[in-house]
């Protein structure tokens, strides 16, 4: 079956289309969406195993040969990320069943949800720089719909800002692709890498550096790195919990993945400038994120600022460009997708119970909801990277790689940030879950038990991911090997080179 790697894109796409027909029948929609999500998880798990056994999978769409047509490439990194995306999507989906409300469900919520997954999986899988842009747009279009669905005033206002920022960054993406095309004359990522190597034999020409920085701006806007994160806290604050979890876990990570891909495959010839810049921005993101996370007294805002910290830590690993740091980054990337989704979903339950996200007005939840409290506690520890939970190994490898690359300051800041992240997330735990229990209006109508299913699954996966890192590590190191050695990728895509 040579079309195997397109199935994680195709299944949600067909599901999304079918769900348009079933818009008014909610139970049918839930069943279709849930089933297709499970199938997607199974297919992507098989894909990971296939890549593990047979090496990188490629597909020349429409039978046009590699540098001329659009190629889909599934190396270990993209396969792992597709699997993680499917799992996170499944969790957000079943959480939505009991929390999103009938109005949204009748208004193509599940269809837009599936189209978002199409965009994310496509962006992870594609091997063509312009096709990446197209999948970005699919993903963004779906995210506009999800963001504005419900039509509250705050949502409308934030959507306008969000769309404007993304329209500008899309235009910059097109411009960057145009510049790149004029220099290398190809769009296939593997072929671009070959051409850039040819022209950078003596030294990397200045124009390539300009293009590298332009790509950093474009993807940095999506991935919310310093100083381009300004749109995120506002826009992510507006939508309800499952959508927020989806955005926080997936959308920024697509930006991070794209930076990783371009900076390891294209622009690795002159790491003195571009990767130095990336490393400085990553450290600044960590610092700004930590400041935000500590300063706010709002459950959602604290976790949103933690996204920026995680993005910074991952990108710091990428910028170090040593095998250890790269494996650490991939490890941490997967960990962060799972644990952020879990935390946002748990925060969603807290907000649903308390009716507010202001920490001053929440306290003593653990008395009535011990399960919720302890799940949150484990998730918080995992986020901060307490061994043996999943955040630990990723951070350890990133810091180790940072020391190997002689970036002592950066590695130190990554370490310090763990402590402050722990502080910021424990602030939610101490203030929200400890203290005197209060009575909240309408808390009895919240189906806490059912809503707990999704975050418990995610936290369990995160724990297993950390405890079983011995089992996971070969996969991660295979992914990092491809990143560290672009020739593997190039040979798999352009067979004759």
């Amino acid at each position, binding site marked *: 079956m040579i079309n195997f790697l397109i199935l994680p894109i195709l299944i949600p796409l067909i599901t999304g289309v079918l769900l348009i027909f079933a818009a008014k029948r909610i139970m049918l929609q839930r069943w279709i969406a849930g089933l297709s999500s499970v199938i997607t998880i199974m297919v992507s798990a098989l894909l990971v195993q296939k890549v593990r056994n047979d090496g990188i999978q490629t597909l020349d769409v429409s039978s046009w040969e590699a540098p001329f047509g659009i190629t889909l490439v599934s190396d270990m990194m993209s396969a792992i990320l597709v699997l993680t995306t499917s799992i996170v999507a499944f969790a957000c989906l079943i959480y939505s069943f009991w929390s999103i409300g009938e109005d949204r469900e009748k208004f193509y919520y599940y269809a837009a949800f599936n189209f978002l997954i199409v965009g994310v999986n496509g962006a992870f899988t594609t091997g063509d720089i*312009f096709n990446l*842009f*197209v999948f970005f*747009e699919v993903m*963004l*279009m779906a995210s*506009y719909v999800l963001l*504005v669905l419900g*039509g*509250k*005033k*705050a949502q*409308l*206002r934030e*959507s*306008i800002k969000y*769309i*404007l920022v993304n*329209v*500008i960054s*899309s*235009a910059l993406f*097109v*411009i960057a*692709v*145009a*510049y790149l*095309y*004029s220099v290398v004359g190809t*769009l296939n990522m593997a072929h671009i890498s070959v051409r850039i190597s040819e022209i950078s034999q003596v030294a990397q020409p200045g124009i390539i550096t300009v293009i590298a920085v332009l790509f950093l701006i474009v993807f940095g806007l999506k991935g919310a790195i310093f100083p381009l994160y300004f749109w995120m806290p506002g826009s992510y*604050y507006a939508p309800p919990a499952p959508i927020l979890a989806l955005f926080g876990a997936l959308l920024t990570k697509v930006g991070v993945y794209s930076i990783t891909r371009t900076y390891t495959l294209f622009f690795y010839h002159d790491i003195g400038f571009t990767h130095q810049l990336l490393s400085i921005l990553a450290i600044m993101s960590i610092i700004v994120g930590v400041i935000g996370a500590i300063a706010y007294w*709002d459950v959602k805002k604290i976790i949103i600022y933690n996204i920026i910290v995680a993005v910074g830590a991952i990108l710091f690993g990428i910028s170090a460009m040593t095998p250890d740091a790269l494996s650490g980054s991939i490890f941490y990337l997967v960990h962060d997708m799972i644990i952020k989704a879990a935390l946002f979903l748990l925060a969603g339950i807290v907000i649903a119970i308390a009716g507010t*996200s*202001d920490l001053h007005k929440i306290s003593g939840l653990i008395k009535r909801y011990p399960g919720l409290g302890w799940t949150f506690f484990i998730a918080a520890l995992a986020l901060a990277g307490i061994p043996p939970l999943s955040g630990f190994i990723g951070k350890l490898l990133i810091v180790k790689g940072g020391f190997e690359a002689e970036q002592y300051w950066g590695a130190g800041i990554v370490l310090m940030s763990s402590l402050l992240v722990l502080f910021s997330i424990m602030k939610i735990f101490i203030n929200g879950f400890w203290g005197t229990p209060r009575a909240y209006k309408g808390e009895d109508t919240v189906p806490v038990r059912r809503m707990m299913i999704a975050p418990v699954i995610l936290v369990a996966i995160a724990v297993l991911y950390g405890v079983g890192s011995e089992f996971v590590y070969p996969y991660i190191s295979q992914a990092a090997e491809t990143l560290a050695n672009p020739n593997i990728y190039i040979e798999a895509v352009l067979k004759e080179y």
Partner: protein
Amino acid sequence: MEILMAFVIGILFMSATYLMLSKSLLRIIVGTGLLSHGAHMLILTMGGLKRGAAPLLGEHASSYSDPIPQALILTAIVISFGVTAFFLVLAYRAYQELGTDNMDRMRGTEGND
């Protein structure tokens, strides 16, 4: 020709930036339209301007124009068509809901609702 195109693109970007910095939502949307036009022109120019046969037809022309930039532009036009349409509908809804198209007044005081 490239110089002329460069100026045209520059003017498009300039007007787009000016429009996007204004307060009226409609002007901002027109600005995003101009921005994507500028980007499309840029792809065309970057692909290399030359006189030649259309890329699709015949096999006897002495020089071909590169079809890839045109395909990219077509794709980008379709996408920006979709985004602009969505943006317009959203602006219209926001105008109905919030009663203003002025970005300053849209900021609102409710803050964290």
